[in-house]
């Protein structure tokens, strides 16, 4: 055993340990974030956070009820835009399209997926704010919906493609039309995957702040209907965190905890649905 070999073995185990350290550090960040939010948010969360409007500037107390409802409305709109387009587009890509059209659609979806969220905000602004000359829930929902489309589309398509060919052919052989095959065989076979895809897309846009800044804007009061500026949790976190008031910081932590909790739960749920097993045995 030469010293050279001993040195190489030392280098090997040293470097491999270092990679382990890297992995531990990366994962530790998650637990650090969680722990810190639970600690700070948990001590500042209370019932009025969920039930009260924001207090006037300078007063302590109040809550973010309007932001919670606002976020709900925005996400509902986003889902109404993003899910149908993403889902039906994915059916087209997986079942009908020729390769060149599919390439263009996929390419656009990937392009759209890579667009920074702030640019999506500008886009939604010029589509839905400029023409009407005011900020609105609708514009915010549009911005989030646009972001949901490519995420839903691409992952739904993958799950549809994973449905075994034999199932398709079986249905066709029984005389089902193409549509019937899709509606009664392929989509049910892939539904876990599709649900996962939709949930993940939902969780992703739920935390988006930048596209809401100049579409949904913000509001310290209730926002009736769909046509007025509305508060939302992520934007509230942003404005409260950079404000100079101690009590606002406390509420920012509480809002952060609620938002992160929601997003992580949806994420875990989505993965659990998928992990419960693919409904179809692989051919």
């Amino acid at each position, binding site marked *: 055993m030469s010293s050279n070999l001993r040195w190489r073995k030392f280098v090997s185990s040293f470097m491999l340990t270092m990679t382990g350290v890297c*992995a531990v550090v*990366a994962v530790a960040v998650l637990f650090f974030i969680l722990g810190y939010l639970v600690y700070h948010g948990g001590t500042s969360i209370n019932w009025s956070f969920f039930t009260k409007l924001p207090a006037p500037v300078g007063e302590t107390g109040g809550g973010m009820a309007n932001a919670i409802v606002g976020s709900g409305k925005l996400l509902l709109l986003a889902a109404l835009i993003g899910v149908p387009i993403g889902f039906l587009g994915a059916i087209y890509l997986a079942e009908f399209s020729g390769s060149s059209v599919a390439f263009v659609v996929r390419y656009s979806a990937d*392009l759209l997926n890579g667009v920074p969220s*702030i640019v999506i905000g500008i886009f939604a602004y010029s589509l839905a704010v400029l023409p009407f000359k005011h900020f609105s829930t609708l514009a915010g929902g549009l911005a989030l919906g646009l972001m949901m489309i490519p995420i839903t589309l691409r992952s739904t398509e993958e799950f549809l493609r994973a449905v075994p060919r034999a199932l398709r052919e079986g249905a066709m052989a029984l005389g089902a039309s193409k549509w019937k095959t899709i509606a009664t065989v392929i989509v049910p076979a892939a539904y876990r995957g599709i649900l996962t895809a939709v949930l993940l897309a939902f969780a992703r846009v739920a935390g988006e702040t930048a596209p809401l800044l100049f579409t949904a804007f913000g509001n310290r009061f209730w926002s009736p209907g769909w046509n007025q500026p509305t508060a939302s949790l992520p934007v509230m*976190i942003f404005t409260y965190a950079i404000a100079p008031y101690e009590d606002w910081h406390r509420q920012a932590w509480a809002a952060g905890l609620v938002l992160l909790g929601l997003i992580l739960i949806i994420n875990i749920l989505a993965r659990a649905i998928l992990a419960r097993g693919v409904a179809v045995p692989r051919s």
Partner: protein
Amino acid sequence: MITFLFAASVVLVTILLVYELWIGSTLPRHKFGLHFFVTSVWDPIFDQFGALPFIYGTLVTAGVSLILAVPLGIGAAIFLAELAPARVSDILEFFIDLLAAVPSVIYGLLGVFIVIPLMREYIQPGLKKSLGFLPLFQGPAYGVGFLTAGVVLAIMVIPYIISVSREVLLSVPRDQREAALALGATRWESTWKVVVPFARTGIMGSIFLALARALGETMAVTMVIGNTPTISASLFSPGYSIAAVIANEFTEATGDLYLQSLIELGLVLFLLTFILNGLARLLIVITSQRGSEMGQA
């Protein structure tokens, strides 16, 4: 076909996006031309708009974040792909995926209340003492600034580097490793001299992906960069980034030229990320194809 219409609408939306950005920035493109990118006066009162400080800030913060994130991310990816047992690797990957799902405003929140004080009290004075002879680490330690933004960005992009690099490393055929080990290489030598070079293009792809994300990141950067349009060699100096200036000034922009200058910044950001994402995808595809070809042979 109804599904075709929906699929086509995706293409349409993308084209419309580019069109709106292009039309929306007509005024400054005509008035300033290429000077927009090389002048550093940003003065809404006299209608002078130059984007240089923002471009500089965006590039510097993204650069800092990559310097920090790449070694850590690749190291962790190597551990997950090469060393950890499959079960452990999957569990850790699950946590990494959750980390990637944390919204950027939460990173911003932690940046404001944890990273900034930490930087101001400990890290920046420490760096000044040990490396203060470099122009990079001079000047007063405000806490906010390029370095802080870079650190927060690094934390944000690490999960992306890890996930993609891990996938790419796992696609390297098994025989490559076995051949190296059979020739007497240690475990690390087989990893570093055989597996990683094999996956190099794909790892580059993951880095480009991370870079694209760092360039376009808005909230976290806005909250910690200091929001002052300066060009300074010091990383301690407060700065500004393209995304941050759009986020802060868009709703307050009075006058068409001001607003359209901000939209032109959006266009620049779009083009940057477009090019980087395209390159990244190409590199990742090349590597995984090479892996499957070799695997079949």
